[in-house]
């Protein structure tokens, strides 16, 4: 019975995910009745017409162009961050590692800050200039960090982490400096750094999705090597893993994913750090299971947080606040429970 459950755990999880996506689409500040919402969804997805004449164009737009893309973006973002977190924690062998640890977030924030100050509003492929600058900022940060830590052909993990923190701090200082001299834009910059999915549509989903899919494929082909990496770099080498190549592969693919996601949504913290830990408590350390479940659970976690962010109060709360406010205590609870031998 138990092994059967285990076998189908992935399938069951996917179904639960779909149900949550569906239920969250029905919830929102604008009241659209249950029947109406279902009619809109059936019509848009399956082109089944169950009498659309009484439903306003506005309601259709809210369900189809506002809520659904936002929820899907939340899923993709949460999943991507958790996935990168799981991979980073694996190659760095460090439980504190998260997707932002190498300064990707600070780089994105600096790019966004510059964009906001310069009122850089032109857009490209449906993305606004701020997002594009954020992407450039985050990706160049990772290149700088990588090249600072490189010793010949090798990249020692400890140096990488430390230079990531150093560069991240420097960039944060720069952002603060920019804010002091541009106090009018300060609130907008702060809002950006807190992360939000507000006002995001299909364009953003389409912009982010290719990177995330590419990243998933790379991660899934590296699961065995990531497992072995947990035994330490020397042992991994002796077991035939080219650790330098693996590090490069994981580093660049997850930087690409994180940069793409962050530039669209801002800095949503905690998902990438906590979700892999929570999943690991249940699935164990094997990446073959850990990576896909982190993706699913990260996605669902962010959907739930974002639903709360947009429905809890009239004034929308940045989702980064919710993830931290709920993720932190929940994680502490799990750690305590684990210590007592509960999980």
């Amino acid at each position, binding site marked *: 019975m138990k092994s059967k459950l285990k076998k189908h755990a992935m399938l069951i999880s996917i179904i639960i995910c779909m149900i949550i996506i569906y239920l969250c689409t029905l919830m929102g500040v604008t009241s659209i009745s249950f029947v109406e919402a279902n009619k809109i969804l059936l019509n848009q997805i399956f082109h089944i017409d169950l009498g659309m004449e009484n439903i306003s164009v506005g309601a259709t737009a809210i369900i189809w162009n506002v809520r659904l893309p936002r929820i899907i973006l939340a899923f993709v973002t949460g999943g991507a961050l958790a996935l990168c977190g799981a991979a980073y924690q694996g190659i760095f*062998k460090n439980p504190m590692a998260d997707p932002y640890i190498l300064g990707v977030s600070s780089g994105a924030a600096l790019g966004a800050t510059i964009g906001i100050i310069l009122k850089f509003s032109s857009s490209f492929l449906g993305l606004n200039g701020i997002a594009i600058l954020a992407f450039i900022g985050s990706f160049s940060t990772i290149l700088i960090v990588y090249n600072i830590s490189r010793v010949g052909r090798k990249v020692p993990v400890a140096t990488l982490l430390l230079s990531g923190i150093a560069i991240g701090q420097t960039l944060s200082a720069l952002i603060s400096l920019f804010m002091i001299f541009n106090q009018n834009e300060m609130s907008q910059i702060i809002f950006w750094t807190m992360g939000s999915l507000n006002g995001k549509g299909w364009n953003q989903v389409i912009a982010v999705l290719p990177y995330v899919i590419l990243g998933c494929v790379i991660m*899934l*082909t590296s*699961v*065995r*090597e990531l*497992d*072995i990496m*947990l*035994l*330490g770099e*020397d*042992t991994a*080498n*002796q*077991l*035939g*893993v*080219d*650790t330098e190549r693996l590090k490069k592969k994981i580093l660049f693919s997850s930087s690409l994913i994180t940069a793409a996601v962050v530039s669209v949504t801002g800095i949503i913290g905690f998902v990438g750090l906590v979700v892999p830990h929570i999943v690991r408590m249940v699935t*164990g*350390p*094997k990446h*073959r299971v850990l990576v896909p479940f982190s993706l699913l659970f990260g996605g669902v976690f962010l959907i739930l947080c974002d639903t709360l962010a947009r429905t809890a109060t009239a004034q929308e709360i940045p989702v980064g606040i919710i993830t931290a406010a709920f993720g932190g205590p929940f994680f502490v609870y799990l750690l305590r429970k684990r210590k007592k031998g509960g999980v």
Partner: protein
Amino acid sequence: MQRLMPKIMLNFKDVVAAYGETNVLQGFNATICQGEFVGLIGPNGTGKSTLLKCLTGLLPLKSGEIMLEEKNNAAYSQRERAQLVAVVPQSFDIDYDFTVEDIVLMGRNPYLSYRIKESRKDYDMVTEAMRVTKTLSFRKRYYNNLSGGEKQRVIIARAIAQDPDIIFLDEPTSALDIHHQIEVMELIRNLNLKKSMTVVAVLHDINLASRYCNRLILMKNGQVVVDGTPKEVITEDNLKKVYDMKMFIQENKLFEKPEVIPLRVIKETETYRSLRIHVICGGNKASQVLEELEAMGHHVTAGVVNQGSDDWTICDVLSIPMVEESPFTSISLEKQEENLALMADCDFILISDLPFGHGNINNLSGLENLSGSIYFHKNCRNNDFTEGQLTKRLSDIKAKKQLVEIDDHQEFLEIIKKLTLIENHEA
């Protein structure tokens, strides 16, 4: 032809390797052939583990080269190399909950590409590796919950699953109790004999190395000091060159292999006024008193001892001047005179715990004419086979001078210490 010329598995040619500026390996040379069981011995910091790092490609060579199965080691990819060489590290812990089977299965990694699933054959090899190492019964348990000996067997199972030609062990027994030490060594010997795997093991325990390896390489300062069979390598001369300490070597009669008995490294911290002390011995009980007197810095002499006795061995090892007699022969007049001459200007003479018979009673002849103080171990009376001669000799000595009787050797050592200790605070 093949039998005459075994395949060369590993060839180290003038290997120099360094961490930063300090050269750890300074021209290491060795050729290792198929089926050999080679032990690398030598003190800490001589580059044994560095050699392993070079071999596994973790540390690039400064100069020289390593040929692995007739191809330059540097030309292998990690994956190719891992198919040929498996490494068993010192026992290690993992921060994550992997089961025994997970760990052993990792040994198959060099043969698997990006395919996600392992094949039937991989699982068969893993099962076989676990069977050989007797780890099959706990395949589903977490590695972290195992005992030290079990963990080491799991790691050896992983190495077997790698299906290598060469297995390299880095101090595989250093964290284990004697039961598990022998278990691991026997397991490795079986791999060597039954699967004709070439084994290279870094070992700190010279006696284990001597017992199991058919060839030893003694290293110091990143170079080979001696390379040969255990009998050729484990000699006092060789080991003294490498380990700065007192030791002696005897043949272990059970295994017919040389065995090291380490004596001491630290010199006496207290300083003593040096005396001339002669110990009359020749049995098997005076080793300790001889060694301690010598360590205190006295001029120790001994006699007359039969060659091959334990007391003779320790004098030989410690280079204590002595009068020797052939084994199982009575002490000749000539040797007795020689012994008397040696005792002539001694400050103390100790008649140690020793059985007396007709063959050695003349050890005590003429003692009454010497100037040194004489101490006598009472227990000699219990091993007196001289039909009254011993008692007579003792009373002859007593007639002329004082004879102090002691209960054990320790008492004598205490007396000497008290007499000769130089108080530190005066100095």
